[in-house]
């Protein structure tokens, strides 16, 4: 039987990724964040230099240090796959690997670490991420990490009060909010500026004091945060709207156990 009879038997014209089960705006929100075809809303405009200063990996306007020569000049063994896959701009010019670490508050932040990881995998290329309870590390080439940070800070997945950039001492996501309703930060990287009402970073991601503070804009109000919440809870989407999610999760658990025990057990299930 030639391969043509095994593969492509049934052409699927209209295939759409489904991403996540469930009714209601929480499930929809979870689908939107990971769906690259749906654009995120841009909330604020941050200059590129401010992003560079926030990350603190190089001086604004400074050169990118490189780890190896640009890929065009690199002598490598012949490999068709290397020529096939398109490298990112950072990889192409041999940048160093740098990181950004985002922390999401437990108290109604616009995104959660586990969802943030899925967003990285569907929206960015060449990512390396580690996800923990509160922090999500993203490692990429330097140019790419700057572009990704700009996107993440400007879009709706960032709230100046409930998400933050922290490399050291990232704890505080589950502590009470501070007196200004900002996520608690032991290093006090950001303050609420009473004159402008903006949240202003006075230290960069590594908690080094900045020469010039960087305002990131107004905190999103509680009502709006509720509208973009990604957690099922008593005042967003209640338990019954989670029914489909629970069905799928229990199906995953059941099939994993049965299939791991004897693969043929889950045929036609």
């Amino acid at each position, binding site marked *: *039987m030639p391969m043509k009879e095994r593969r*492509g038997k049934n052409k699927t014209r209209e295939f759409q990724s489904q*991403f996540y089960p469930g009714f209601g705006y929480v499930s929809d929100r979870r689908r939107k964040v990971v769906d690259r075809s749906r654009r995120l809303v841009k909330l604020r405009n941050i200059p590129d230099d401010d992003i560079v200063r926030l990350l603190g990996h190089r001086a604004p306007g400074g050169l990118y240090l490189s780890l190896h020569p640009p890929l065009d000049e690199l002598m490598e063994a012949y490999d068709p796959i290397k020529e096939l*896959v398109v490298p990112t701009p950072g990889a192409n010019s041999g940048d160093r690997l740098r990181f950004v670490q985002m922390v999401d508050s437990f108290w109604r932040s616009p995104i959660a670490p586990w969802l943030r990881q899925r967003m990285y995998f569907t929206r960015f290329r060449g*990512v390396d991420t580690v996800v923990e309870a509160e922090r999500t590390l993203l490692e990429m080439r330097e140019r790419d990490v700057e572009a990704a940070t700009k996107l993440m800070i400007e879009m709706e997945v960032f709230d100046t009060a409930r998400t933050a950039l922290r490399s050291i001492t990232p704890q505080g996501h589950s502590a009470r909010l501070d007196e200004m309703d900002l996520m608690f930060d032991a290093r006090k990287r950001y303050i609420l500026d009473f004159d402008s009402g903006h949240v202003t970073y006075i230290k960069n991601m590594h908690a080094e004091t900045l020469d010039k503070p960087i305002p990131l804009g107004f905190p999103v109000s509680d009502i709006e945060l509720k509208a973009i919440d990604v957690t099922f809870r008593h005042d967003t989407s209640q338990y019954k709207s989670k029914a*489909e999610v629970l*069905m799928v*999760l229990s199906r995953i658990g059941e099939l994993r156990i049965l299939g*791991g025990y004897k693969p043929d057990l889950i045929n036609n299930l």
Partner: protein
Amino acid sequence: MKYEDKIDIYDDRGNCLAEDLPVEAISPLNNPYMIRILNLMKSTAFVNLRKIESMIQKGNFGYTSVSRQDEINMPWHGRAWAIVENGPAIVEKMKNIIKVHNGQDDTNVQLLSGNDIMMVTIPTRRIQAASSRDPPFTITATALGQALAEVFDVSPATDPDGVNIIKNVLVGRYPQTMAFPPGNPIFSFLRPSTQQEGLGTGYKTISINQLVALAEKRTFDAVVLTSILEQAAQFEMGNTLGWFERYNLLAFAYQSLNADRLLFDLIQENKAGTIGDIVASLIRAGLEDEVIKRGRGFPYKLFSDYRVYSTKDYPLWNAYTCAGLLAACIVNVGASRAAQSVASVFSGFSDLCMFESGGLPDPDCGRVMGVGLGLTKFSHNEGGCGGIGSLTLDSDLIRHTSGFISPCLAAAMCLDSGTQVYRPETTAGVFFRIKQVLPIFTDPLKKIVEAAERVKSAL
């Protein structure tokens, strides 16, 4: 023939190498080429003559750490033996000592170019008569000791200290220790059996970087070599028996041998895409090939229009997801050209894949995701496992799957453009040279196919 499955095999440029091979022809139990590779791994040792010479001249013996050789440091006992210069004489003597018959047998002792590395292949008769795969170490060490003693005229009468020096240089403190010391000048593809992690994991005692060097950093070749060893180990461990034999063979074929061009098509379709795109392409391929299907009605179509897919052949769908996993690793690492990006794909791809397919298990029923979660932690800040290239296949971080993780790691190390501390060139540089004298490692996919064509009628 036990199984009806047939596969076509394609190379890394998308060209067809063979059509309609029975899947059993690529089993390590049946495929003559794989058996030759495995026998070569078991029966070959290498001796670093340059290192022996410098150890003897400086009087440094025993345990070697990364920074220095400091267990025994007695320069006043150094000997001015020109070992590299006398390489050809040593080779002749060793041949005579090792061979079983006076006539021809398959003993092979030869020097690599530069005369500093000696390759010793132990005759099959000695391997067959042995209870384990240790003769490359024991026979080579003893034969080399006798050869050195004869060439440099060392005996208790002429040079009593020289006798001890030869023993310490070649085997360190062994047999007080479990095996030869780290950094010993006598080494093999595999580690000694006293250092392996469990029963039947012998073929897994080779590191990723060594395999990458043997493939000369060509992605598909490294994937194939790694998979041969992994699957041979799975067969030896009893992990690939009965219920799991077809499961492993299909996953091996689709993930590592590019069966039915699934892997290549996924990479080519998404060469500028993300991991999410690979997942979407994989599900679409599964639907088009009728491996998974959309059901109708409530349990399969939920009220939010979410579809729960089901499969009539889970081993085949697992093979598809394993191919998707490798494609996702190649696309992600190929984009960043940094090998560290591979670890998080294991958890990310599995996570996206099982929600996209409506609850069908992720690759290897969740074992890949379990490995991914641990590997991301330990290859970053928390544990510091020292870079994925330096891991052996039986490292406690990656050994828990049925052999579907390490091919991805090998592919990542091939695509790396020099960002790792433990690079193949630095940790396994000698294996690049070894590959030059062993043509068996060139074009492994083609050789597997040729061997499979030969045996398929006899199955």
